[in-house]
């Protein structure tokens, strides 16, 4: 019983990432992309399609990485705020963003 509950709990926790940017989400070099509304989140995740990216939470900051890297910016508690991506590359490109 405990094992089943633990298993389901882990799956429930791991199923909470929401992809808010993807499917051709384009940003020009230096451009920010915001979700445009607030959500409950404690982390922002970003990945460029062969582009450098920053993943951030408005008013808290961001984490930037080079091409091919995954970026996360994590807080110690949930906040009601907005995730965003920043094109950290010298070229425009496509990006993926998640929050959880």
């Amino acid at each position: 019983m405990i094992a089943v509950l633990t298993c389901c709990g882990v799956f429930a926790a791991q199923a909470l990432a929401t992809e808010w940017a993807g499917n051709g989400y384009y940003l020009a070099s230096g451009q920010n992309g915001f979700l445009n509304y607030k959500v409950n989140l404690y982390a922002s995740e970003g990945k460029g399609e062969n582009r450098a990216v920053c993943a951030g939470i408005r008013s808290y900051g961001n984490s930037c990485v080079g091409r091919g890297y995954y970026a996360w910016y994590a807080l110690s508690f949930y906040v009601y705020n907005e995730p965003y991506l920043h094109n950290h590359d010298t070229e425009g490109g496509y990006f993926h963003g998640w929050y959880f």
Partner: protein
Amino acid sequence: MLSHPGHLIARHRRVLVAGLLAIAAILAIILLLNGSGTTARASAPMLPSYAAYTALSSTESPGLTVATPGSPAALAAKGPVFPANPPGGMASHGPLVASIRRLPIALPTVSAWIAKSADGGICVLVSRHESVNGTYPLGISCEPAPLSESGATSEIETDGRKTVTVGAVPDGVSSVRVAFTDGSSETVRVSRNAWALESDAHIANTRNVVGG
């Protein structure tokens, strides 16, 4: 009983042909190993392994709280919190909690860690000692496998503060030449796989300097 002379000549010929074929085969193998084989070895990059990151084998406590965000343990933490059981990409590509080790850096206001990533790459985790709105944000960067010679870097930005960049490079790299987006550059010393700096400009690229 004596053999027929014709049979003897035929047998000698077969032995001679077999010997020549064996010599030809040995020569072909030697040529392959020393010819195209050398070319293949020279063009294939020697990618580092986790063994090239001594910092990953440190026995020092990482000093990073791992807890569920918002839990009593996370709220009581006096520093950044790495989320327990993270979802999505952080579970499949992010740091393996058990492998997180402190990365010794020269910036007194920043803590950093190195970790193996869940997909075989390398991660760098960074946090300022200064809180932002009551929390200590943790910036995490993971480079997917295979490990590259350039290592991994992570930048964190907070409004009104300088950009902090931390890098992890394999053993043998003595310094890193950093080029910034404003055209300036700087050489940073590496100590125990780590380098770090604060800057006004973002980093455009880095180049490892091996040895002295």
